[in-house]
């Protein structure tokens, strides 16, 4: 089963040598609301290669949040298969998904979602804690390294309320990076920032992409989506368009 799927995916990505990271096949998410059936995702298939920079767009109700939750392993589909880095995660238990999230996915949220009482360093350490068994000093140096990568060497011991919005989002990006995940999944990462700071954050994502990271952006803003080199548009739970961006904006 897994073999045939992999083959299909390789055929789909014909022409490129790159490694396939995400394979989604006939994914459905169906909610029963009384007698009516709501198809939040209605048969979505897609593949994403390593080091791709993909944006997912769509109006509200199009299913982009649902797709993001499924790709982020926060939810399980009603039907369909999802291979992340070669592992079938579609039918995993909550705890198994938690382990996959921890090792494979780096989340960046619109509202940052930092722990308010913890320092930047401690916030960035968090995914390493749940990785298990990494000694405290190793955790600390990994977190310091991640914070340096986002340019916050001087803010390591500050708490979120002592940081600007842009700095908070940088801490969140550092936290997403620290476990060296397969994909970075950013949900409206500039939604709570002014446009100038937003551009700075997008520039950071561009840099991470150039450094070899795979990035998936969920956004409803065209100019943010244009940072990516591929845009997937959803409508009514289905993929509407899936295009490569020729005219990628540079920060």
């Amino acid at each position, binding site marked *: 089963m897994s073999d045939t799927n992999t083959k299909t995916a390789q055929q789909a990505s014909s022409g490129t040598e790159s490694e396939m990271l995400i394979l989604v096949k006939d994914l459905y998410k169906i909610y029963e609301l009384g007698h009516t059936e709501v198809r939040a995702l209605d048969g979505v298939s897609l593949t994403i290669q390593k080091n791709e920079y993909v944006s997912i767009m769509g109006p509200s109700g199009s299913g982009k949040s649902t797709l993001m939750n499924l790709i982020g392993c*926060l939810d399980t589909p009603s039907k369909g298969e999802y291979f992340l880095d070669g592992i079938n995660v579609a039918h995993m238990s909550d705890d198994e998904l938690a382990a996959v999230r*921890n090792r494979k996915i780096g989340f960046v949220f619109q509202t940052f979602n930092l*722990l308010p009482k913890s320092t930047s360093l401690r916030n960035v350490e968090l995914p390493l*804690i749940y990785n298990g068994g990494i000694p405290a000093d190793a955790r600390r140096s990994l977190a310091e390294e991640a914070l340096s990568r986002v340019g916050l060497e001087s803010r390591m011991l500050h708490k979120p309320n002592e940081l600007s919005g842009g700095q908070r989002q940088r801490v969140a990006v550092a936290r997403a990076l620290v476990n060296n995940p397969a994909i970075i999944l950013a949900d409206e990462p500039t939604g709570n920032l002014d446009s100038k700071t937003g551009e700075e954050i997008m520039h950071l994502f561009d840099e991470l992409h150039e450094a070899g990271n795979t990035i998936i952006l969920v956004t409803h803003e065209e100019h943010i989506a244009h940072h990516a080199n591929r845009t997937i548009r959803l409508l009514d739970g289905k993929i509407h368009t899936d295009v490569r961006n020729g005219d990628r904006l540079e920060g």
Partner: protein
Amino acid sequence: MKQRRYFFKENLKIALAELWANKMRSLLTATGIVIGIIAVTLMSTLIAGVDGLFEKSMAFLGKDVVYIEKWPWGGGEEWWTIRNRPEIDMDLADKIADWSDYALSVAKERGRGADLSYKEMKSEGIFVNGVTANYLDVSTVEVEYGRWFTEPEDRTYSQVILLGYEVAKALFPNEDPLGKEVHMGGQRYLVIGILAQMGKFMGLQNMDTRVVIPFNTFEKNFHSRWGMRRIAVKVPADHVDEAIEDLRGTMRILRQLKPNEPDNFAVNQQQAFEQQYAMIKYSIGGVGLVITALSLLVGGIGIANIMFVSVKERTREIGVRKALGAKKRHIKGQFLIEAVVITGVAGIVGLLIAAGLSWLIDEYIFPASMSFFVAFMAIFLSVFVGVLAGWTPARQAANLDPIESLRYE
């Protein structure tokens, strides 16, 4: 195992940081447990104190000694029926010694209050014991210094006296009492011995503020029929129950009771005390422990309540932790440890306060000393309350849906 220790350490850090961040709330919540633990430990300590006291007092009586008296120790019968019983005729002692196969030794004992003096030194409200020379067989009394009186001395109404430990100290602070003459009830007595220190019977009756004189001397010098009078019978230690029955039968014959008449005397033995005591102990102790345990329960409910609030408040944090890879047991552990840290610390504080209080009580009021077992139980109990109180909130937190929690405002 290593993983568990790792997460335990991390969760402990989180718990301590969280409790420190909410100092006032933690303090207030912990107070309930502190009070509960103080109540439970003090109660157990006091019960143990009374117990120890009782054990020690029972040693005064001796397991193999049966007392024939007017008043039963255990109570139970109507006061006025007992009051109207004839006094114990001390001459019965000799007949009992002759008739009963179980009587190894039969001593007579009388007693009353009196004042003692030596030169200008006075000792008032002293208990005077008039006993036969074989009293040593039936009592734990020991002569510390000097000698006991002899049977001929008793027969010849000798004016000799043995002083209790504290009486000797009070009357002869700087002198050797032996060979001195003390005054009591208009009579002079020669001091021939000092009794060994005994302590208090049931924590109340001081056994060291008494004096002992020969039985016949007592009868000659104190004419009143009042005061304590009893016959103490030493019986074989392995046949106490049969001995009690035998003595009862003997007494009924001596008192010429008809078969349908009730006993008009009491055959007392340590067991009666023990039964009576056990009943009091288990009723008061049981009720006391239940009430104090209730206070601990109330404290536990307080903890559970605050943990529910904490889970609600930190829904978003839980969502973040889950998104970043926390498994159910990590979240559950985090909140359980938080609850246990509160109750554990509160338990230790409560225990320390209770230890201080029981030291004060021991010093000034009543013998009480906290045992290692009670201390261990207090810590165990507080941890147990923490687990119990934290369980449901922690499980609720662990089962939160990460998507919902991340959206929670």
